């Protein structure tokens, strides 16, 4: 890899040991990729929290030890200076207000708060959400970013036209201290072209169907770049947030085009930019049914836990849930957690949505989700969710079967304790 003079100085330790370790990691990583150089970034979204039991031993050694090992891949503990470029914290494992409802020991919640205080002072903005683009970090087309969180990466590349690969805890830790990331993959314009053409033969409009479409596409194209054409209605932030999260769970999709809607292609030809179409796929009734079957692994219709808000709910989604619950009471056998970014929770509170949900017996959570925290209400046997991503991951992470459906089906399950969803 070729380094600029400024990069070489950091690599040589002239800017201190933390930047040296950061450059060492970026060099090893860049060489592993086969990158030829680094690119400057002013937008880093990473995971700097220390809220799991497995990092307890590191926390005991101090937060510099946590950052050195987990964010720089350095066993040597180096003093960590202020972040060099704008950096934010993605989702964490603990809701700073509702950890007891999650079932998390006070000690771990305390550990997270101390970590936030430490890293917050170093300049890591505590958005604490998987959707930074909902709360003020909205990169501009062409902007080079270093983001983690597969559902945010696919949104950043595809919907916003900014440029990031799916980075990890260590590479974002290094990028935050150096303002650099390997110039590889989706930073390079040619790699952003389409590979697979997907004809959508059936009407795709509601959030569930966008999720099914994403889940089906991801499993087939894996890490490639699908180009969608056909019968989709005009999507919104909410629908593309859901679609992307699904495609990045069943596969590793980081970039897609919907010609005429996403910013880098007005036509299918634009999207492929002259490169060959690897495969042409069709999404019809059978494919929709298959994705639905793959996401629904529960058989018992008694639901004891309903989870809404992965990726974190927008304010409109919280409003809809509040409306569906207004004046009603949850089944005595069922718990409901509604997840939204902390900044949007403020709005939800001001609007009265939080009260409507909590009056019905639900909990409005921020900062976390069950997949990240690995906590569901104690004794949960069957989960219902409107998220394809949670339906994909929760059976593996928590070992609990899941029903996947619409937000209305999920709210009904929370009110009755029974799953009555199905694909029409």
């Amino acid at each position: 890899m070729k380094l600029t003079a400024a990069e070489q100085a950091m690599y040589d330790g002239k800017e201190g040991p933390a930047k040296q370790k950061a450059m060492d990691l970026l060099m090893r990583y860049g060489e592993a990729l086969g990158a030829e150089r680094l690119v400057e970034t002013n937008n880093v979204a990473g995971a700097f929290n220390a809220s799991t039991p497995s990092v307890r031993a590191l926390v005991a050694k101090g937060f510099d030890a946590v950052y050195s090992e987990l964010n720089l891949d350095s066993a040597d503990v180096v003093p960590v200076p202020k972040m060099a470029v704008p950096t934010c914290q993605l989702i964490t494992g603990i809701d700073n207000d509702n950890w007891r409802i999650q079932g998390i020991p006070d000690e771990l919640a305390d550990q997270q708060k101390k970590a936030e205080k430490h890293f917050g002072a170093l300049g890591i903005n505590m958005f604490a959400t998987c959707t930074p683009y909902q709360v003020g970090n909205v990169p501009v087309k062409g902007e080079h970013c270093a983001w983690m969180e597969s559902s945010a990466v696919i949104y950043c590349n595809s919907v916003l036209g900014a440029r990031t690969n799916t980075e990890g805890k260590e590479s974002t830790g290094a990028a935050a201290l150096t303002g650099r990331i390997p110039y590889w993959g989706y930073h390079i314009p040619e790699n952003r072209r389409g590979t697979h053409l997907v004809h959508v033969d059936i009407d795709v409009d509601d959030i569930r169907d966008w999720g099914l479409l994403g889940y089906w596409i991801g499993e087939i194209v894996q890490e490639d770049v699908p180009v969608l054409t056909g019968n989709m209605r005009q999507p919104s932030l909410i629908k593309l947030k859901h679609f992307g999260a699904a495609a990045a769970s069943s596969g590793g999709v980081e970039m897609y085009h919907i010609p005429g809607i996403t910013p880098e292609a007005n036509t299918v030809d634009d999207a492929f930019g002259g490169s060959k179409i690897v495969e042409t796929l069709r999404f019809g009734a059978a494919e929709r049914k298959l994705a639905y079957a793959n996401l629904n692994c529960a058989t018992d219709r008694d639901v004891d836990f309903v989870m809404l808000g992965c990726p974190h709910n927008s304010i409109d989604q919280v409003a809809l849930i509040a409306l569906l619950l207004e004046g009603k009471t949850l089944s005595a056998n069922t718990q409901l957690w509604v997840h939204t970014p902390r900044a949007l929770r403020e709005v939800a509170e001001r609007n009265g949505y939080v009260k409507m949900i909590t009056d019905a017996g639900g909990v409005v959570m921020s900062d976390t989700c069950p997949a990240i925290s690995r906590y569901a209400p104690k004794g949960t046997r069957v989960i219902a969710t409107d998220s394809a991503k949670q339906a994909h991951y929760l059976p593996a992470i928590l070992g609990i079967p899941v029903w996947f459906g619409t937000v209305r089906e999920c709210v009904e399950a929370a009110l009755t304790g029974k799953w009555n969803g199905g694909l029409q």
Partner: protein
Amino acid sequence: MTDTGSNSAIVLHGRKVVGGVAEGEALVTHDTISGWGGINEREGTVIERRHELRGVSFKDKILVFPGAKGSSGYSAYFHMTRLNGVNPRAMIFVKMTTKAALGAVVTRAPAVTDLDQDPLSVIETGDWVKVDADRGIVEVTKRPASAQAAE
């Protein structure tokens, strides 16, 4: 499959991802691997619900796989398998992505990619594999047919 006698090694040439030399028994999957939400970092097992290797541990194995998928927590989880001593002894993968690269780097086990033959067809679970990542060489000694028949 390759028609090579059980004693002579098949040699594949590729590119170093992470340097070093290691040898051991191959564990081969045709499914991509999720780190976060796909593996248990304390046991080194695959936990994804519809995965070919569900419940199988890659600890001390030469892990042969198509590549990484899913969450950006991939590297952090393979990083923790190393801290917990349950990481694969080496990695051989096909599709280069940032997740696969960073995951290999922080696992600090020898890793290679861009091989001149498809490792997923040449190598089978149980074969003895030597990875010389610095030279980009993979030597595969097929498991004797008798051992396969005994299963």
